[in-house]
Structure formats: structure tokens, C-alpha cells
């Protein structure tokens, strides 16, 4: 299973990367895309939208299911990756390269409270049937 050590994670299977400029980048994990299968549609939040932590803010749809993506932390959307909307398969090819959107955090310390790689791996294991 691919869970990079330098990222943070949520229980709802988003990955989060703290950027040098203070924004955070969000995508869905390799595990999430593996469960969903071949992606056919991605809808990102609009730039400028203010998000509460845990708010449904994006949609990923595969041949199996449509799934909501949740805001890992509160903040404002400052960028969205059009490339994954036009080519959803990029998420299957490399889930950690195919970022979805960037947030300017309301409170930068919120990122620290997210799961680290080891905690996320344990969470995935606990969800396995």
C-alpha cells in the first residue's frame, strides 16, 4: 500500500500536503482510488469557496460509485486542478501527483491534528473486512 510518510491524512481518505507558501494541497489517497476503481468524473470546488472542516466539497465518480470528498480543514479554496477534471484517470495513475484543490487554511495549526502516515495505515487496516 502506498502511503507517503511526508503527507497528512484523514479518516475519509483524503491526503493533505502543507506547502511552503502556507497553503495546503488536497487529493484522495491511493487506497481510495483503489477502492473506487477507474475514475470517470471529478468535480472540484470553486476557487474562492469557504469551507468548513468536514464539509462535502468535491465529487469523484468511478464506474462503481460516486463519492464525496471532504474538506480536511477549514479554509478558502485558492486553486483547483483542472487537469484531474479533464483527465480523471490521472488519479488512478498517481493519486499523490494528481492533486485536486488547494486551501488557504483558516488556522494553519489544523494540519498538525490530521493523521500521520502510520495512523492512516492503521485506520485503513481497521476498516478492512
Amino acid at each position, binding site marked *: 500500500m502506498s502511503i507517503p510518510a511526508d503527507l497528512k491524512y484523514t479518516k475519509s481518505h483524503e491526503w493533505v500536503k502543507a506547502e511552503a507558501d502556507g497553503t495546503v494541497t488536497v487529493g484522495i489517497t491511493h487506497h481510495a482510488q483503489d*477502492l473506487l476503481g477507474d475514475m*470517470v468524473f471529478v468535480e472540484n470546488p470553486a476557487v474562492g469557496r469557504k469551507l468548513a472542516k468536514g464539509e462535502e466539497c468535491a465529487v469523484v465518480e468511478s*464506474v*462503481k*460509485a460516486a*463519492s464525496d470528498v471532504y474538506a480536511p480543514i477549514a479554509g478558502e479554496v485558492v486553486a483547483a486542478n483542472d487537469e484531474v477534471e479533464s483527465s480523471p*484517470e490521472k488519479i488512478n495513475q498517481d493519486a499523490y501527483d494528481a492533486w485536486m484543490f488547494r486551501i488557504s487554511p483558516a488556522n494553519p495549526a489544523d494540519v498538525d491534528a490530521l493523521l500521520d502516515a502510520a495512523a492512516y495505515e492503521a485506520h485503513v487496516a481497521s476498516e478492512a*473486512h
Partner: protein
Amino acid sequence: MLIFEHSHPGRAANAQLPPQDGALDDLPAELLRDAPPALPECSELDVVRHYTRLSQKNFSIDTQFYPLGSCTMKYNPRACNSLAMLPQFLARHPHAPAETGQGFLQSMYELQEILKDVTGMAGVSLAPMAGAQGEFAGIAMIRAYHDARGDTARNEILVPNAAHGTNPATAVMCGYTVREIPTDREGNVDLEALKAAVGPQTAGLMLTNPSTLGVFEKTIQTIQKLVHDAGGLLYYDGANLNAILGYVRPGDMGFDVIHMNLHKTFSTPHGGGGPGAGPVGVAERLLPFLPVPVVINDNGVYRNAAEADLPQSIGRMSANGGNAGVLLRAYIYARMLGAEGMHRVAEFATLNANYLMARLRDAGFELAYPTRRASHEFIVTLKKVKDETGVSAMDFAKRLLDYGFHAPTTYFPLLVPECLLIEPSETESKETLDAFIEACIRIKEEAYADADLVKGAPYTQPVRRLDDVKAARELDLAYRG
């Protein structure tokens, strides 16, 4: 090949054209077409062969076992069809005066009464034209009820994640925010999560019972008390009513509103997008809000009650009281079964599901909820097979087609990885179930012996494996000649 591609200019089949009595030359000129429509031009034999071939390509309940979980693909008795096709029903105009259609209206009134009785509700409207519209009507009534009391701050509908997939969409369509309630390891609603979620913002809870996990919500009494104590109402999704028909009534479980899928439980023709029928039933306090028309009995005279009779109604959901032909078939089905027969529907639906489940378990298939008795359906997970052979639930499903069986529902519910949701229904014989079990065992053996064989399936169908990713990414929906 489409019928248009068989077309040849000037070719026609005139032998059965109806006589042209009555001149049409008084139609206003501005309403006439400039050119004739682009209809296919084919001989009678071309048409007969085209549609016969299409019908032979169908995988249908009339030709094959169809254990599509959560869909209740049962046999549609031919008597329901032939009686509903009586000329007295077929030739009746929906706007004819009520006194000339008393037989039909009485049938609809009695169907309302039967559905009330079997679900334990106080009133039923047959107006919704499909399950989705029935759901919409149900949640709209919950909203109307709260609004009528001035209780307008309630903005949330609770939906367990084992509920039927349409439920959250319905709640959003009715303007509510959805709050999802998780499921515990045994497949029940997580009561602690429910306790934390209910409150003054709760408009209602939508529940499918038995759930899409194929198990009965054992704590339904506690659930209904929690929601009712918070001032919310309970909505019953009738998708899985077949499992409890005649045994347990949603009204007795405390539900305030219910929709029924007559094309599931009451055996009207199913699939192909309709026509469906999604009657709604309500408890006493929601009676004023029922959608119209509703058939009423005025001292032995039947008529459609409309907006004037039900001023608080959420409104008219169909012009003439639902899909008449479908409702008639359901009525005849219910009358043929009687109360005793309805018991037997649930008994045999549950027996067939548990027989299949036990035999598959004994053959080494992994059950998603091994400690639970199946309701009318159950879930097998092929995760271990996928991990060990690479053969997925979808590959398995496609291979079943080669053995002459429609696939069960795959990848639903989403909670269980690599799952097959299997619902045999009560109308299948033991021989058919045994043949299905044998096919499942052989496909599993194939997966371990020759995984590519299963991954390449199907081989015997009119088309091979479709590229569903390409189909979804590059939508091609319209014929352009």
C-alpha cells in the same frame, strides 16, 4: 443495428395500416409539418426479424434467473397481465365520468385498502409514478407536516449508510441537509452515532428495513423512539418490503410514512426504466398531506379526491392517479395472493435467500455478515478471491452470464468490498438455486485455475466485455443517422 439502419427508401408495410376514416384536412396549416418525419422504411419481415432478434438478445426474468439484489426480480404472473388487459380496463378514458369507470376506481380503492392493511398505515395514495417519486412525496409530506406546525427550523434528514442509495438524493431534492449515520460491525444502525446526531434540527430519518446489507434492523424500536422523542418523523423505504410482507408492518414499527415499489414487491413488470409505481402510505398525522389524486368511497360511489378534498395536500403527483396499468397488475397480484399468500411470499423469499447463503458459505464463499440470518437477500464478499487470483466481483459477475445467469448486484452496498448482493426472490425453484450454486462453485475454481478465463468473460453473449470506463468518459447518447 438500429431499425433506421435497415431502412430503404420506398420500402413499406401497408397491409395492417388502419383505415383512414375521418378527414384530417381541417387541421390549421401552421400546425402541419413541412416535411414528413424521418421514419424508417422497412418491409414487414424486416421489422419482425429486427425485433425478434432484439428480444433474443434480452437477458430477462422470462428467460433466466435474475438474482439482482435490492431489486426483487420476481416472476410477473401472466394472469395479472391478461386481466389488466381486459378491454373494459384498456378502453376506459381517464377523463370519462366516474360513474362509467366504477369498476376501475373500485379496484384502485381496494388496492389502497390492501396496501394500508399490509403495511399498517392509515392512508395510501397511488399517485406517485415510480419509487423515486414516492420517496419525494414521502419527504415532502414530512416537510409539510413540520411546516404546518410552524416547526420550520428542522433542516436535517438522517440517513444510515446502509439505506437505499436513493434516500440521500431524495432528502436533498426536498431541500434538506443529509447527515449520514454509520453502521456497526453486525450491520445495524450505530445507535451511539444516532444518539449523537438526533436533535431539534432533525426533520426525520430514512430507513430501509431490512437494510441493503440484507439484515433486519433489530433495534428498530429504539431507533424510532430516539427519532420521535427528538420531534422527527420516520420514513420507511419499501425497497426490501418483500422480506417481511405479511409478517411485520412498517406502521407497527412506528414509521410515519412509507413508499412501496410495486414493481418489486407486487410483481409488476420491472426494468427498462418503467413504468413503475411508487404508492405512499402514511400514519394518521400525515393523512391531510397525501398527494392527489386519491380514490375515495362516497357511500358506495368511488371517485378521485382532488385538491379541493385535501386542501393541505402536497399536490398533484400525476394527472390521473398513477400508472393505471401497473396498479391494476399489482391489485390483481394482491387479490390472487390474499393475506395467506402474502405470508408465503415473505417465507419463501427468506427461505430461498437463506438456502443460497448456507450452500455458498459451505462451498467456501465468504459472507459479509456471517453471524446474521439473511432477510430476502445477502452479501458475499470476493475480497479474498480478488487478493489471491486478481478475479474481481465484476469478473465473477460477467462469467455468470456465460453460465446462463444474470449477475447479482455488484459493488453495492459500498460498505462491503468486492461484494455480490444476491436476492433470489420467492419465485425460483430449488433446482434453479442449485444450478446457480454449482455455477458459482465452478467459477471460483476457474478463478484459481485460470484467472484470465474469468477476466475475459463473457464469451457467449451478443457482445463481449463492454468498456464501461470509455462509455462513461465519452458519452454517446443520441442516434445521429
